[in-house]
Protein backbone atom coordinates (compact mmCIF):
# COMPACT_ATOMS: atom_id res chain seq x y z
CA UNK A 1 0.00 0.00 0.00
CA UNK A 2 2.82 2.38 0.95
CA UNK A 3 4.57 1.56 -2.32
CA UNK A 4 1.45 2.41 -4.31
CA UNK A 5 0.98 5.70 -2.48
CA UNK A 6 4.64 6.62 -2.95
CA UNK A 7 4.28 5.93 -6.68
CA UNK A 8 1.16 8.14 -6.76
CA UNK A 9 2.95 10.93 -4.86
CA UNK A 10 5.94 10.84 -7.21
CA UNK A 11 3.55 11.01 -10.15
CA UNK A 12 1.97 14.17 -8.68
CA UNK A 13 5.47 15.60 -8.18
CA UNK A 14 6.22 14.90 -11.83
CA UNK A 15 2.97 16.61 -12.86
CA UNK A 16 3.77 19.61 -10.65
CA UNK A 17 7.30 19.80 -12.05
CA UNK A 18 5.81 20.93 -15.33
CA UNK A 19 6.11 24.41 -13.82
CA UNK A 20 9.88 24.06 -14.03
CA UNK A 21 9.37 24.57 -17.74
CA UNK A 22 8.52 28.17 -16.92
CA UNK A 23 12.20 28.83 -16.04
CA UNK A 24 13.28 29.47 -19.66
CA UNK A 25 10.09 31.50 -20.24
CA UNK A 26 10.93 33.66 -17.23
CA UNK A 27 14.52 34.07 -18.46
CA UNK A 28 13.32 35.35 -21.81
CA UNK A 29 10.69 37.58 -20.18
CA UNK A 30 13.35 39.02 -17.89
CA UNK A 31 15.66 39.68 -20.88
CA UNK A 32 12.79 41.42 -22.66
CA UNK A 33 11.33 43.52 -19.83
CA UNK A 34 14.55 43.88 -17.80
CA UNK A 35 12.89 43.67 -14.35
CA UNK A 36 16.26 43.27 -12.75
CA UNK A 37 15.74 39.68 -11.55
CA UNK A 38 18.81 37.57 -11.15
CA UNK A 39 19.02 33.84 -11.83
CA UNK A 40 18.51 32.94 -8.17
CA UNK A 41 15.28 34.93 -7.97
CA UNK A 42 13.90 33.24 -11.08
CA UNK A 43 14.79 29.77 -9.78
CA UNK A 44 13.49 30.55 -6.31
CA UNK A 45 10.13 31.84 -7.63
CA UNK A 46 9.65 28.82 -9.91
CA UNK A 47 10.63 26.50 -7.05
CA UNK A 48 8.02 28.11 -4.77
CA UNK A 49 5.34 27.82 -7.48
CA UNK A 50 6.23 24.15 -8.00
CA UNK A 51 6.08 23.51 -4.24
CA UNK A 52 2.70 25.22 -3.88
CA UNK A 53 1.27 23.34 -6.86
CA UNK A 54 2.66 20.06 -5.51
CA UNK A 55 1.30 20.84 -2.02
CA UNK A 56 -2.20 21.48 -3.41
CA UNK A 57 -2.25 18.66 -5.96
CA UNK A 58 -0.76 16.01 -3.69
CA UNK A 59 -3.10 16.98 -0.86
CA UNK A 60 -6.20 17.04 -3.02
CA UNK A 61 -5.28 13.77 -4.74
CA UNK A 62 -5.21 11.80 -1.48
CA UNK A 63 -8.29 9.78 -2.51
CA UNK A 64 -8.02 10.34 -6.24
CA UNK A 65 -7.24 6.74 -7.18
CA UNK A 66 -10.15 5.43 -5.10
CA UNK A 67 -12.52 7.94 -6.71
CA UNK A 68 -11.28 7.64 -10.28
CA UNK A 69 -10.78 3.88 -10.28
CA UNK A 70 -13.87 3.08 -8.20
CA UNK A 71 -11.67 1.39 -5.61
CA UNK A 72 -13.30 2.62 -2.39
CA UNK A 73 -15.03 -0.69 -1.79
CA UNK A 74 -11.76 -2.55 -2.24
CA UNK A 75 -10.00 -0.21 0.19
CA UNK A 76 -12.78 -0.54 2.76
CA UNK A 77 -12.86 -4.33 2.45
CA UNK A 78 -9.17 -4.95 3.10
CA UNK A 79 -8.00 -5.37 6.69
CA UNK A 80 -6.36 -1.99 7.20
CA UNK A 81 -7.44 0.40 9.93
CA UNK A 82 -8.49 3.89 8.85
CA UNK A 83 -5.50 5.35 10.70
CA UNK A 84 -3.11 3.10 8.80
CA UNK A 85 -4.76 3.90 5.46
CA UNK A 86 -4.40 7.58 6.25
CA UNK A 87 -0.78 7.19 7.32
CA UNK A 88 0.06 5.29 4.11
CA UNK A 89 -1.54 8.05 2.07
CA UNK A 90 -0.29 11.05 4.02
CA UNK A 91 3.32 10.15 4.82
CA UNK A 92 4.76 9.76 1.28
CA UNK A 93 3.08 12.97 0.14
CA UNK A 94 4.19 14.94 3.18
CA UNK A 95 7.67 13.37 3.02
CA UNK A 96 8.20 14.57 -0.54
CA UNK A 97 6.92 18.04 0.40
CA UNK A 98 9.38 18.18 3.32
CA UNK A 99 12.23 17.18 1.01
CA UNK A 100 11.23 19.99 -1.38
CA UNK A 101 11.04 22.52 1.46
CA UNK A 102 14.44 21.46 2.86
CA UNK A 103 15.94 21.60 -0.63
CA UNK A 104 14.48 25.07 -1.09
CA UNK A 105 15.92 26.14 2.27
CA UNK A 106 19.37 24.87 1.32
CA UNK A 107 19.34 26.43 -2.15
CA UNK A 108 17.55 29.74 -1.60
CA UNK A 109 17.57 30.56 2.11
CA UNK A 110 16.20 33.99 2.92
CA UNK A 111 14.84 35.42 6.20
CA UNK A 112 11.32 34.77 4.79
CA UNK A 113 12.02 31.05 4.38
CA UNK A 114 10.36 29.88 7.65
CA UNK A 115 7.11 31.76 6.94
CA UNK A 116 7.09 30.57 3.30
CA UNK A 117 7.57 27.00 4.51
CA UNK A 118 4.83 27.47 7.11
CA UNK A 119 2.31 28.70 4.55
CA UNK A 120 3.16 25.87 2.14
CA UNK A 121 2.56 23.32 4.89
CA UNK A 122 -0.72 25.07 5.79
CA UNK A 123 -1.82 24.97 2.14
CA UNK A 124 -0.90 21.26 1.97
CA UNK A 125 -2.87 20.47 5.13
CA UNK A 126 -5.90 22.44 3.90
CA UNK A 127 -5.74 20.44 0.64
CA UNK A 128 -5.41 17.13 2.54
CA UNK A 129 -8.33 17.94 4.82
CA UNK A 130 -10.51 18.94 1.88
CA UNK A 131 -9.40 15.99 -0.28
CA UNK A 132 -12.31 13.72 0.58
CA UNK A 133 -14.85 16.40 -0.33
CA UNK A 134 -13.56 17.39 -3.75
CA UNK A 135 -15.76 17.02 -6.77
CA UNK A 136 -13.75 19.00 -9.30
CA UNK A 137 -10.14 20.11 -9.05
CA UNK A 138 -10.87 23.73 -10.02
CA UNK A 139 -13.56 24.24 -7.41
CA UNK A 140 -11.17 22.80 -4.82
CA UNK A 141 -8.43 25.18 -5.94
CA UNK A 142 -10.85 28.04 -5.33
CA UNK A 143 -11.86 26.63 -1.92
CA UNK A 144 -8.22 26.31 -0.89
CA UNK A 145 -7.51 29.81 -2.19
CA UNK A 146 -10.36 31.25 -0.11
CA UNK A 147 -9.35 29.38 3.05
CA UNK A 148 -5.72 30.40 2.53
CA UNK A 149 -6.86 34.00 2.07
CA UNK A 150 -8.71 33.78 5.40
CA UNK A 151 -5.62 32.39 7.19
CA UNK A 152 -3.32 34.92 5.56
CA UNK A 153 -5.55 37.94 6.27
CA UNK A 154 -6.34 36.86 9.83
CA UNK A 155 -2.62 36.27 10.55
CA UNK A 156 -1.95 39.86 9.39
CA UNK A 157 -4.62 41.19 11.79
CA UNK A 158 -3.64 38.98 14.71
CA UNK A 159 -0.54 41.03 15.75
CA UNK A 160 -2.89 43.95 16.59
CA UNK A 161 -4.60 41.75 19.20
CA UNK A 162 -1.29 40.36 20.45
CA UNK A 163 0.20 43.82 20.90
CA UNK A 164 -2.93 44.83 22.86
CA UNK A 165 -2.37 41.96 25.28
CA UNK A 166 1.27 42.93 25.75
CA UNK A 167 3.21 40.72 23.28
CA UNK A 168 5.32 43.26 21.44
CA UNK A 169 8.33 41.28 20.16
CA UNK A 170 8.05 41.21 16.33
CA UNK A 171 9.39 37.63 16.28
CA UNK A 172 6.81 36.38 18.76
CA UNK A 173 3.89 38.33 17.30
CA UNK A 174 4.66 36.93 13.85
CA UNK A 175 4.90 33.29 14.94
CA UNK A 176 2.09 33.40 17.49
CA UNK A 177 -0.17 34.99 14.86
CA UNK A 178 0.64 32.29 12.33
CA UNK A 179 0.31 29.55 14.94
CA UNK A 180 -3.03 30.72 16.37
CA UNK A 181 -4.70 31.42 13.04
CA UNK A 182 -3.33 28.23 11.44
CA UNK A 183 -4.43 26.12 14.40
CA UNK A 184 -7.82 27.86 14.54
CA UNK A 185 -8.57 26.75 11.00
CA UNK A 186 -6.65 23.49 10.74
CA UNK A 187 -7.75 21.81 14.00
CA UNK A 188 -11.51 21.90 13.21
CA UNK A 189 -10.85 21.15 9.55
CA UNK A 190 -8.68 18.18 10.56
CA UNK A 191 -11.34 17.04 13.03
CA UNK A 192 -13.99 17.15 10.29
CA UNK A 193 -11.67 15.21 7.97
CA UNK A 194 -10.84 12.54 10.56
CA UNK A 195 -14.45 12.19 11.65
CA UNK A 196 -15.48 11.66 8.00
CA UNK A 197 -12.69 9.14 7.36
CA UNK A 198 -13.38 7.26 10.58
CA UNK A 199 -17.07 6.83 9.79
CA UNK A 200 -16.70 6.55 6.05
CA UNK A 201 -18.32 3.66 4.23
CA UNK A 202 -19.28 2.79 0.69
CA UNK A 203 -22.31 5.08 0.56
CA UNK A 204 -22.06 7.97 -1.91
CA UNK A 205 -19.47 10.37 -0.46
CA UNK A 206 -21.72 13.41 -0.77
CA UNK A 207 -23.98 12.10 2.00
CA UNK A 208 -21.03 11.71 4.39
CA UNK A 209 -19.86 15.29 4.82
CA UNK A 210 -22.01 16.36 7.76
CA UNK A 211 -18.92 16.83 9.97
CA UNK A 212 -17.58 19.50 7.64
CA UNK A 213 -20.71 21.59 8.12
CA UNK A 214 -20.61 21.10 11.90
CA UNK A 215 -16.90 21.83 12.34
CA UNK A 216 -15.99 24.20 9.53
CA UNK A 217 -18.88 26.64 9.14
CA UNK A 218 -18.53 28.21 12.63
CA UNK A 219 -14.76 28.55 12.15
CA UNK A 220 -15.14 30.33 8.81
CA UNK A 221 -17.77 32.66 10.31
CA UNK A 222 -15.52 33.43 13.30
CA UNK A 223 -12.47 34.08 11.10
CA UNK A 224 -14.49 36.35 8.83
CA UNK A 225 -15.93 38.15 11.86
CA UNK A 226 -12.42 38.56 13.30
CA UNK A 227 -11.11 40.01 10.00
CA UNK A 228 -14.02 42.44 9.71
CA UNK A 229 -13.99 43.59 13.36
CA UNK A 230 -10.19 43.89 13.88
Amino acid sequence: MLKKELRDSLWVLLESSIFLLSIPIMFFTEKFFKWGWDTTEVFSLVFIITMVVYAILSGLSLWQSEKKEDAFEYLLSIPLSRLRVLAYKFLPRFGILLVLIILFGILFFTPQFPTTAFFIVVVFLIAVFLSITISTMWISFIEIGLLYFLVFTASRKMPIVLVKIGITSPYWTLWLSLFFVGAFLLIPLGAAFWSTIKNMDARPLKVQFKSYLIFLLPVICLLLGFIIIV
Partner: protein
Amino acid sequence: MIEIKNLSFRYEKKFVYNDFNLAIPKNQVCLVTGINGVGKSTLLRLIAGVLKPRTGEIKFAGDMGDDPRKSIGFISDKLSLYKNLTVAQAIDLHKSVYQLDEFDDSMLKHTKIDYSQKIKSLSVGQQTIVHLNLIFSTNPKILLIDEVIVALDAYLKKVVLQKLIQLITENKLTVIMVNLNFHDIEHIVERVILLKDGRILVDEKIGDLKQKVKKVKSATPPEHLPILSRSNFNNSMEYFIYPFNEEYRKTISGEIFDLNLTDIVSGFIGGEYA
Protein backbone atom coordinates in the same frame (compact mmCIF):
# COMPACT_ATOMS: atom_id res chain seq x y z
CA MET B 1 -21.21 -18.34 11.76
CA ILE B 2 -22.60 -14.95 10.79
CA GLU B 3 -25.28 -13.48 12.99
CA ILE B 4 -27.10 -10.33 11.97
CA LYS B 5 -29.15 -8.84 14.79
CA ASN B 6 -31.67 -5.99 14.61
CA LEU B 7 -29.86 -4.42 11.72
CA SER B 8 -31.05 -1.14 10.27
CA PHE B 9 -29.52 0.60 7.32
CA ARG B 10 -30.46 3.36 4.93
CA TYR B 11 -28.60 5.23 2.20
CA GLU B 12 -30.60 8.40 2.50
CA LYS B 13 -34.11 8.69 3.93
CA LYS B 14 -35.69 5.35 3.04
CA PHE B 15 -34.59 2.34 5.09
CA VAL B 16 -33.25 -0.60 3.09
CA TYR B 17 -33.26 -2.73 6.24
CA ASN B 18 -35.09 -2.07 9.44
CA ASP B 19 -34.72 -4.51 12.34
CA PHE B 20 -33.36 -7.22 10.05
CA ASN B 21 -32.21 -10.56 11.48
CA LEU B 22 -30.39 -13.45 9.84
CA ALA B 23 -28.09 -16.26 10.94
CA ILE B 24 -25.87 -18.18 8.57
CA PRO B 25 -24.01 -21.19 10.01
CA LYS B 26 -20.45 -22.09 9.14
CA ASN B 27 -19.83 -23.94 5.88
CA GLN B 28 -23.20 -23.12 4.38
CA VAL B 29 -23.66 -21.92 0.81
CA CYS B 30 -26.49 -19.40 0.59
CA LEU B 31 -28.08 -17.72 -2.35
CA VAL B 32 -29.62 -14.33 -1.66
CA THR B 33 -32.11 -13.23 -4.24
CA GLY B 34 -34.98 -10.83 -4.84
CA ILE B 35 -36.04 -8.15 -7.26
CA ASN B 36 -33.66 -5.36 -8.27
CA GLY B 37 -33.15 -2.75 -5.58
CA VAL B 38 -34.33 -4.99 -2.74
CA GLY B 39 -30.97 -4.72 -0.93
CA LYS B 40 -29.10 -7.91 -1.88
CA SER B 41 -25.81 -6.17 -2.68
CA THR B 42 -26.28 -3.89 0.32
CA LEU B 43 -26.53 -6.97 2.54
CA LEU B 44 -23.22 -8.30 1.21
CA ARG B 45 -21.59 -4.89 1.68
CA LEU B 46 -22.83 -4.72 5.26
CA ILE B 47 -21.42 -8.18 6.02
CA ALA B 48 -18.14 -7.28 4.27
CA GLY B 49 -17.83 -4.18 6.46
CA VAL B 50 -17.78 -1.71 3.59
CA LEU B 51 -21.12 -0.31 4.73
CA LYS B 52 -21.81 0.50 8.36
CA PRO B 53 -25.20 -0.37 9.89
CA ARG B 54 -27.06 2.52 11.48
CA THR B 55 -28.22 0.28 14.30
CA GLY B 56 -27.85 -3.39 15.16
CA GLU B 57 -24.82 -5.57 14.74
CA ILE B 58 -23.20 -8.21 12.62
CA LYS B 59 -21.33 -10.81 14.65
CA PHE B 60 -18.86 -13.37 13.41
CA ALA B 61 -18.44 -16.44 15.58
CA GLY B 62 -15.31 -18.57 15.43
CA ASP B 63 -11.69 -17.66 14.94
CA MET B 64 -11.95 -14.49 12.86
CA GLY B 65 -8.99 -12.68 14.45
CA ASP B 66 -8.91 -9.02 15.49
CA ASP B 67 -10.26 -7.77 12.17
CA PRO B 68 -13.01 -9.93 10.56
CA ARG B 69 -12.11 -8.47 7.16
CA LYS B 70 -8.96 -10.63 7.21
CA SER B 71 -11.20 -13.70 6.90
CA ILE B 72 -13.77 -12.27 4.50
CA GLY B 73 -13.40 -12.37 0.73
CA PHE B 74 -15.71 -9.87 -0.92
CA ILE B 75 -16.22 -9.26 -4.60
CA SER B 76 -18.80 -6.62 -5.39
CA ASP B 77 -20.77 -6.07 -8.57
CA LYS B 78 -18.66 -2.94 -9.14
CA LEU B 79 -15.42 -5.00 -9.44
CA SER B 80 -13.76 -2.54 -7.14
CA LEU B 81 -9.99 -2.69 -7.63
CA TYR B 82 -7.19 -0.20 -8.23
CA LYS B 83 -7.57 -0.42 -11.98
CA ASN B 84 -4.55 1.75 -12.74
CA LEU B 85 -2.27 -0.90 -11.25
CA THR B 86 -0.86 -3.72 -13.32
CA VAL B 87 -1.93 -7.24 -12.38
CA ALA B 88 1.53 -7.80 -10.82
CA GLN B 89 1.22 -4.59 -8.75
CA ALA B 90 -2.30 -5.55 -7.62
CA ILE B 91 -0.98 -8.95 -6.50
CA ASP B 92 1.91 -7.25 -4.72
CA LEU B 93 -0.46 -4.86 -2.93
CA HIS B 94 -2.80 -7.68 -1.90
CA LYS B 95 0.13 -9.77 -0.66
CA SER B 96 1.44 -6.93 1.48
CA VAL B 97 -1.96 -6.06 2.97
CA TYR B 98 -2.78 -9.69 3.84
CA GLN B 99 0.86 -10.44 4.73
CA LEU B 100 1.04 -13.40 2.36
CA ASP B 101 4.42 -15.04 1.75
CA GLU B 102 3.19 -16.92 -1.28
CA PHE B 103 0.53 -16.06 -3.82
CA ASP B 104 -1.42 -18.91 -5.34
CA ASP B 105 -2.13 -17.70 -8.87
CA SER B 106 -3.40 -21.06 -10.10
CA MET B 107 -6.63 -19.54 -11.39
CA LEU B 108 -4.88 -16.76 -13.28
CA LYS B 109 -2.67 -19.32 -14.97
CA HIS B 110 -5.74 -20.65 -16.76
CA THR B 111 -6.07 -17.28 -18.49
CA LYS B 112 -3.89 -15.52 -21.00
CA ILE B 113 -3.51 -12.46 -18.81
CA ASP B 114 -0.14 -10.75 -18.97
CA TYR B 115 0.79 -9.65 -15.43
CA SER B 116 2.29 -6.43 -16.76
CA GLN B 117 -1.09 -5.35 -18.16
CA LYS B 118 -3.01 -2.68 -16.32
CA ILE B 119 -6.23 -3.96 -14.78
CA LYS B 120 -8.25 -1.27 -16.57
CA SER B 121 -7.09 -2.69 -19.91
CA LEU B 122 -8.55 -6.14 -19.11
CA SER B 123 -12.02 -7.26 -20.08
CA VAL B 124 -14.69 -7.47 -17.38
CA GLY B 125 -14.31 -11.26 -17.33
CA GLN B 126 -10.53 -10.97 -16.93
CA GLN B 127 -10.91 -8.38 -14.16
CA THR B 128 -13.32 -10.73 -12.44
CA ILE B 129 -10.88 -13.62 -12.53
CA VAL B 130 -8.07 -11.36 -11.21
CA HIS B 131 -10.30 -10.21 -8.35
CA LEU B 132 -11.46 -13.74 -7.55
CA ASN B 133 -7.88 -14.99 -7.57
CA LEU B 134 -6.84 -12.19 -5.20
CA ILE B 135 -9.65 -13.14 -2.85
CA PHE B 136 -9.11 -16.89 -3.02
CA SER B 137 -5.37 -16.44 -2.36
CA THR B 138 -6.10 -15.20 1.17
CA ASN B 139 -7.96 -18.40 2.11
CA PRO B 140 -11.06 -16.61 3.38
CA LYS B 141 -13.46 -18.23 5.81
CA ILE B 142 -16.41 -16.28 4.46
CA LEU B 143 -16.89 -15.55 0.79
CA LEU B 144 -19.31 -12.91 -0.47
CA ILE B 145 -19.85 -12.92 -4.22
CA ASP B 146 -22.07 -10.41 -5.93
CA GLU B 147 -23.29 -11.20 -9.46
CA VAL B 148 -19.90 -11.34 -11.13
CA ILE B 149 -19.41 -14.93 -12.25
CA VAL B 150 -21.85 -14.27 -15.11
CA ALA B 151 -19.11 -12.21 -16.78
CA LEU B 152 -16.85 -15.23 -17.15
CA ASP B 153 -16.69 -17.43 -20.21
CA ALA B 154 -17.79 -21.06 -19.93
CA TYR B 155 -14.27 -22.37 -19.32
CA LEU B 156 -13.29 -19.83 -16.65
CA LYS B 157 -16.67 -20.24 -14.98
CA LYS B 158 -15.88 -23.93 -14.63
CA VAL B 159 -12.42 -23.17 -13.23
CA VAL B 160 -13.88 -20.75 -10.66
CA LEU B 161 -16.65 -23.10 -9.60
CA GLN B 162 -14.17 -25.97 -9.21
CA LYS B 163 -11.97 -23.78 -7.02
CA LEU B 164 -15.04 -22.68 -5.08
CA ILE B 165 -16.11 -26.27 -4.45
CA GLN B 166 -12.55 -27.12 -3.38
CA LEU B 167 -12.53 -24.24 -0.88
CA ILE B 168 -16.00 -25.10 0.43
CA THR B 169 -14.93 -28.69 1.05
CA GLU B 170 -11.39 -28.15 2.31
CA ASN B 171 -11.68 -24.85 4.19
CA LYS B 172 -15.27 -25.26 5.45
CA LEU B 173 -16.02 -21.99 3.68
CA THR B 174 -19.25 -20.07 4.25
CA VAL B 175 -20.50 -18.58 0.99
CA ILE B 176 -23.16 -15.98 0.35
CA MET B 177 -23.93 -15.37 -3.29
CA VAL B 178 -26.25 -12.88 -4.91
CA ASN B 179 -28.38 -13.51 -7.99
CA LEU B 180 -25.84 -15.40 -10.01
CA ASN B 181 -26.65 -17.53 -12.98
CA PHE B 182 -28.65 -20.04 -10.96
CA HIS B 183 -28.00 -22.89 -13.35
CA ASP B 184 -24.22 -22.69 -12.74
CA ILE B 185 -24.45 -22.79 -8.98
CA GLU B 186 -27.50 -24.98 -8.44
CA HIS B 187 -25.44 -27.95 -7.33
CA ILE B 188 -23.54 -26.02 -4.64
CA VAL B 189 -26.29 -23.85 -3.12
CA GLU B 190 -27.82 -25.25 0.06
CA ARG B 191 -30.10 -22.43 1.13
CA VAL B 192 -32.12 -19.82 -0.71
CA ILE B 193 -33.05 -16.51 0.90
CA LEU B 194 -35.55 -14.32 -0.93
CA LEU B 195 -35.70 -10.71 0.21
CA LYS B 196 -38.65 -8.37 -0.01
CA ASP B 197 -38.95 -4.83 1.36
CA GLY B 198 -35.98 -5.25 3.71
CA ARG B 199 -37.14 -8.53 5.21
CA ILE B 200 -36.88 -12.22 4.45
CA LEU B 201 -39.81 -13.49 2.41
CA VAL B 202 -38.54 -17.04 1.88
CA ASP B 203 -35.75 -18.83 3.68
CA GLU B 204 -35.58 -22.50 2.70
CA LYS B 205 -33.11 -25.29 2.10
CA ILE B 206 -32.92 -25.90 -1.61
CA GLY B 207 -34.22 -29.50 -1.29
CA ASP B 208 -37.26 -28.32 0.65
CA LEU B 209 -37.84 -25.53 -1.82
CA LYS B 210 -37.87 -27.96 -4.72
CA GLN B 211 -40.51 -29.98 -2.90
CA LYS B 212 -42.57 -26.91 -2.09
CA VAL B 213 -42.54 -25.08 -5.41
CA LYS B 214 -44.15 -26.70 -8.46
CA LYS B 215 -45.29 -25.46 -11.81
CA VAL B 216 -48.73 -26.35 -13.09
CA LYS B 217 -49.68 -26.11 -16.76
CA SER B 218 -53.40 -25.91 -16.96
CA ALA B 219 -56.09 -24.40 -19.17
CA THR B 220 -58.12 -23.44 -16.11
CA PRO B 221 -56.46 -21.55 -13.28
CA PRO B 222 -56.10 -23.68 -10.12
CA GLU B 223 -57.52 -20.87 -8.02
CA HIS B 224 -57.99 -23.17 -5.02
CA LEU B 225 -54.20 -23.50 -4.73
CA PRO B 226 -51.69 -20.94 -3.37
CA ILE B 227 -50.56 -19.41 -6.67
CA LEU B 228 -47.23 -17.65 -6.32
CA SER B 229 -47.14 -16.24 -9.84
CA ARG B 230 -48.45 -16.96 -13.29
CA SER B 231 -47.02 -16.62 -16.76
CA ASN B 232 -48.18 -17.10 -20.29
CA PHE B 233 -45.75 -19.30 -22.19
CA ASN B 234 -46.53 -20.19 -25.83
CA ASN B 235 -50.21 -19.45 -25.31
CA SER B 236 -50.42 -21.87 -22.43
CA MET B 237 -50.81 -20.65 -18.88
CA GLU B 238 -48.29 -21.71 -16.24
CA TYR B 239 -48.89 -21.35 -12.53
CA PHE B 240 -46.21 -21.45 -9.85
CA ILE B 241 -47.61 -23.02 -6.71
CA TYR B 242 -46.06 -22.35 -3.28
CA PRO B 243 -46.24 -24.00 -0.82
CA PHE B 244 -47.11 -27.14 -2.75
CA ASN B 245 -48.70 -30.07 -0.96
CA GLU B 246 -48.67 -33.57 -2.40
CA GLU B 247 -52.40 -33.72 -1.68
CA TYR B 248 -52.91 -31.09 -4.40
CA ARG B 249 -52.04 -33.62 -7.10
CA LYS B 250 -55.51 -35.15 -6.75
CA THR B 251 -57.22 -31.83 -7.41
CA ILE B 252 -55.14 -30.51 -10.33
CA SER B 253 -56.35 -31.14 -13.85
CA GLY B 254 -53.21 -30.02 -15.69
CA GLU B 255 -49.56 -31.17 -15.74
CA ILE B 256 -47.35 -30.69 -12.68
CA PHE B 257 -43.63 -29.99 -13.14
CA ASP B 258 -40.65 -30.19 -10.80
CA LEU B 259 -38.52 -27.07 -11.04
CA ASN B 260 -34.84 -26.21 -11.07
CA LEU B 261 -33.44 -23.31 -9.08
CA THR B 262 -33.68 -20.87 -12.00
CA ASP B 263 -37.40 -21.59 -12.43
CA ILE B 264 -38.06 -21.45 -8.71
CA VAL B 265 -36.38 -18.07 -8.35
CA SER B 266 -38.06 -16.69 -11.45
CA GLY B 267 -41.38 -17.95 -10.07
CA PHE B 268 -40.83 -16.03 -6.85
CA ILE B 269 -39.53 -12.93 -8.58
CA GLY B 270 -42.40 -13.07 -11.08
CA GLY B 271 -44.72 -13.03 -8.08
CA GLU B 272 -42.99 -9.90 -6.79
CA TYR B 273 -43.55 -8.04 -10.05
CA ALA B 274 -47.15 -9.24 -10.50
